[in-house]
Every structure is written in C-alpha cells, then in structure tokens.
C-alpha cells in the first residue's frame, strides 16, 4: 500500500521560512516511521535531515512530532498512524529551535539537565564537579554502585532511571510552552531520582531548595503530557508531585507554589471545600491580590465572586479524622 509522508522542511541558510514537502512511499508489514524516512532519504530526497541511531528505542535520537505528537520514529509503526490520520506528518520537536528540517538544537534541554546536578553530591562536590567529565585514568567512582533492581527496591522508583533523554516530554510540556526557562519534566524527574538516592549526600537540602526557586518544580502545569507521551513509560509529573510532597514535608515553603498547595490542604481540612478567596490570598500574598484586583473587580461586577464564608460539608468530622489519622493536623 502506498502512503504519503508530509515532512517539515527548513534550511535556515537557504529558506526564508519553513515549508512542507510530500513524499509517496510503499508500505510493508511492520514498517516504522524511521524506516520510511530512511527510505525517503536513500531513494527520493537525500537532503531530508533527521537524527537517528539505534533503531531500538534506546538512544532517543529519532524523537520528532508524528501527526502532532512527540514520538520516537523507530518505535512508531506506519500502519496505525495511517489508519488514524491518513498521512504521516513529521515535524521537529517543539520547545527547541530548529537547526534544519527535523533536527532541533538540544542545548537548552541539556543545560537544564546539568542545572539539577545529575550526579551524587558528597565527597566529589569539592572537586569542581559542576561539569560532566569522563573519569581520568585510574580514577574510580567513589560512591557504592547499585544494580538497578537494588535502587528500585531501596527507593520504590522503578521508572525515572529508565529515561533516555529523548526530549519527547520536554517537547510536549505545557510548562515549557508557557515559560521557556522552566526546567521541564526530564530534568525535574532526574532531580527527584537524585533526591531519593540513599547515596546522595545533600546535607542541607539544597536540591529541594534550588528546585523550589522560580522556573523550578512549582512551575509544572500538571498537564500530564509528559506521562502520556513518554516512549519509555516514565511519569515525570508523578516524580514532580513527589518532589512537591517531599519539599513541603521538609518545611521548604518559601515558594508561591508550596503555599498554594498547603493552603488548599488547609482549606479542605477546615471546611471540606476549596476556599477560592483564601487560596488566592495565601498563594500570591498582598502583591498577588493587588495584581489581580482589576480582574477580580471585573468578575465581581458580573456577580462571579465566591462566597466569603464557606458552609462546611456534611459530616465534616470524617475529613478531620482523615487528617488526624495521617498526622497532618499541625501542618
């Protein structure tokens, strides 16, 4: 069966703006999108540029947008895509500048990975370990090495170590779309992975403090795209939520995001409901309220104001008991 590939094309040296080019390819059973692209490049148009390497969903090189969603071309079969969309539409990953055709510039992504210090803190921090470096001749890793299953048993974390840094989550992330400085799901999932590593010697909780700064863990918009579209079945958003929980349990609550979550929990503990006014005040403080005043005034004129005092839900004692059972009354 013949099908069409519609590829995003852009060469900044020669093209004024991006355009799309269509190719007709003959399908065969089990053909992947990467197989199809290699066929186009070798038989129809040698100028089409894309990254690829392992063809086994291990290296993460061939991540691209396929029919609007970030996927690994080597892991995506042609036939179900054609069945659903009638065409294979390929575009470069989002949230990163395009170098050429389907190839994006990855520096911003890897800068963010480096920012969370993706290595064990401790003895080696004094040795200027801020950069990745290959081991020198004779140099040994000083921390104990765990097998993957040991790490999983110790931490319960059986997904984040499987990350292949393919950038699918980063490309789909709503938080990065809204704020290009946001660390993004892959870096934050890695931050969580190091936070819970029993070998990590983060004495003063600097990982959680740094991760709580603007553009960090509290800028997650909870859009769930990173979990949905990770080709390795990892859920960065669940790691981010665990970071939130760990941060609040360690009383690192200087950020607006942590205040927001604590305020919601407090409001439910007091009334069983989410008190919109109180949560807005607790999260943004006076400056936040002043900032939102024109909007709030406009909404107020339309009668769209929440009640100043909330009625308790029926059987509120049930909720109080939940807080008591979990020892959360004082938080």
């Amino acid at each position, binding site marked *: 069966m013949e099908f069409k590939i519609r590829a995003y094309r852009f060469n900044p040296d020669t093209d004024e703006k991006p355009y799309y080019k269509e190719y007709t390819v003959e399908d065969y059973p089990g053909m992947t999108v990467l197989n199809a692209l290699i066929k186009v490049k070798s038989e129809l148009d040698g100028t089409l540029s894309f990254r690829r390497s392992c063809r086994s969903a291990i290296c993460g090189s061939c991540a691209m947008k396929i029919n609007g969603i970030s996927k690994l071309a080597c892991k995506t079969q042609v036939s179900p895509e054609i069945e659903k969309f009638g065409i294979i539409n390929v575009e470069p990953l989002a949230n990163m500048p395009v170098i050429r055709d389907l190839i994006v510039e990855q520096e911003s992504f890897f800068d963010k990975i480096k920012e969370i210090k993706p290595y064990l803190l401790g003895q080696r921090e004094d040795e200027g370990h801020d950069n990745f470096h290959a081991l020198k001749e004779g140099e040994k890793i000083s921390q104990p090495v765990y097998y993957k299953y040991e790490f999983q048993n110790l931490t319960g974390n059986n997904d984040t170590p499987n990350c292949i840094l393919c950038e699918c989550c980063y490309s789909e992330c*709503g938080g990065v779309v*809204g704020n290009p400085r946001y660390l993004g799901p892959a870096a934050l999932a890695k931050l969580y992975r190091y936070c819970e590593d029993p070998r990590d010697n983060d004495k003063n909780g600097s990982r959680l403090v740094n991760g709580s700064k603007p553009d960090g863990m509290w800028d997650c918009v909870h859009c769930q795209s990173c979990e949905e579209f990770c080709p390795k079945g990892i859920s960065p958003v669940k790691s981010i939520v665990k970071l939130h929980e760990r941060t609040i349990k360690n009383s690192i609550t200087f950020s607006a995001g942590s205040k927001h979550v604590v305020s919601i929990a407090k409001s439910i503990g007091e009334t069983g409901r*989410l008190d919109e006014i109180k949560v807005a005040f607790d999260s943004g403080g006076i400056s936040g309220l002043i900032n939102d005043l024109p909007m709030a005034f406009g909404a107020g004129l339309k009668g769209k104001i929440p009640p100043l005092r909330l009625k308790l839900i029926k059987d509120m004692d049930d909720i109080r008991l939940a807080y008591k059972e979990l020892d959360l009354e004082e938080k």
Partner: protein
Amino acid sequence: MITYAYYPGCVAQESGKELDNATKFIADKLGINLIPMPEASCCGGGVIDGFDKNLKLFINGRTLALAEKDGLDIMTICNTCTLTLSEVNEELINNPESLEKTNEYLAKIGLKYSGKVKVKHILYAVRDDIGLDKLKEKAVKSLKGINIAPFYGCHILRPSSAVKFDDVENPQGFEELIKALGGEPVSYGRRTKCCGFQTILVNEATSTSLAGNAIFEAQEKNADVMVTPCPLCHLSLDTYQTVAAKSINKKLSLPILHLPQLIGIALGGDYAEMGFSRHNVSLRGIMAKVRQNEI
C-alpha cells in the same frame, strides 16, 4: 431515566455557579436524575498529593465509597475532579495495599469501598449513556452556522491510564456532540493543550500565555465561540481573558461557554437561565444567532 451521584466540585458551587445551574437545567431536560452528595469533600484541586499522597486517597476514597453505598456511578462536570477521582479509583482497584489502608480509615467512619463505582464526565455521560440521537431529538434550537471551538483541556484526556473516555491522540467526543447539535466544530491544534490554570496563582505569566494562545488560535480559525468541559479552564479562558490578551500582546475577544451551557441553549435555555451575565466576554452575539435557529 439515568441516575448518578452528582459531584459538581468546588468551583461550580462557588464562583462558577452558572455551570452548576446549567448542568441541572440540561439534566432535567435529558432525563438525568442527579443525586446530590452533600457529604462529598473537595477532590484536592489536582495538587493535594503534593501535600500528602494518602490524604488524596482517603478523601477521594471516601467520595467513591459514598457513591458505592448508594449503588451509583459518579457524574462530574470538572476535568480535574474527573482525573483525581479516576486516579484514586484506579489506585484502589489495582493496588490492594492502598485499598486496605483506605478501607481502614473508611471503616472508622462507617464506610467501605470495593471498587464498583465508575466516574463519568458529563461530556461522555451525554455521549455514551444518553446518546447523541436522544440529544438531537430533545434539541429545540439548532447551532447551525456557529463555529464552535472545542477546548478539551488536559484532565479529561490525560493520563489515559486513568481517564479512558476518548482517543488521547485524536479525541472526537466533543466534535461529535457539537455536530449532533448542528454546530460546526473548529479544528485547531491547541484543542487538547493546557489552559495553564494550575499555575495561575503561582506563575500568572506562564498560565495566561497558554490560555491566550489557545484563544488566539481559535479566533484565527474563525471560531465564534469556544466551549470547555472544565470550570478551571473556564476561569483561565474567560475570567482571565483580558489578562491573557495582555500577556501575549494580542487582541482577544472570544466568548467561552461551559459545555452544559452549549447543550443548554440547544435545549431552549435562555440568557438568564444559562447565567451568561456572569461571563467576562459577552454571549449576546451567539444568542442572537441561536434565536434565529428554531428547529
């Protein structure tokens, strides 16, 4: 008549009362019996597990157990409530340890959960349980000639391990419903993207730029109106629309409907019954078009 335990969520009972009223209006017209849940608590706004994971299980396990006690499924009208209740439901059904822990708490308040409740958002309750043919039959006004941009948002689709109503890559439930009412669904890329609400009080610039760009794209595709199945998205898209316009430095003026209001006007609801005076962006233009479309 279909009966559900009705879980409106907090916003529809506070600043977004027009959504609760429109839902009751269409339930009455479509023969849906909504049993109130005065004991149900807030689901935790999609962030409560960032405070304590077990608290999310306990308070939502309690809501599920209340519905199970009455032998009812739950109908929701908010994406985030839908996801939170669905996630907890999945966890309690698939993880015996979590179920046991939650049931220990529930036993102390005279409840028990065994995993029988289904959580349904009103969009899919209308499509699957009522049926689009019946909806068509009950409609007294057509939405013919109106370009309607469906804005799914996130939590009604993702993660598909917890919410399983539609095809997460190419959902069609909303479009099918719009077509059934005679409207013209607008196709645009951001229909399944994030409205940014979860960070609106934390990082307003991030949040409003997401909402603003979605509205702008729909406007560019000639949408007359945008419709959302979630009151949190509605706050971002309508209440904050002026802020969103400034944030992306574009002119925005797109009326935003709650899904039950869209169904409501097709079922004969008027401006006051649908609570349109509470919206930031005026709905008068849309209502004038609908008025001419008697079936």
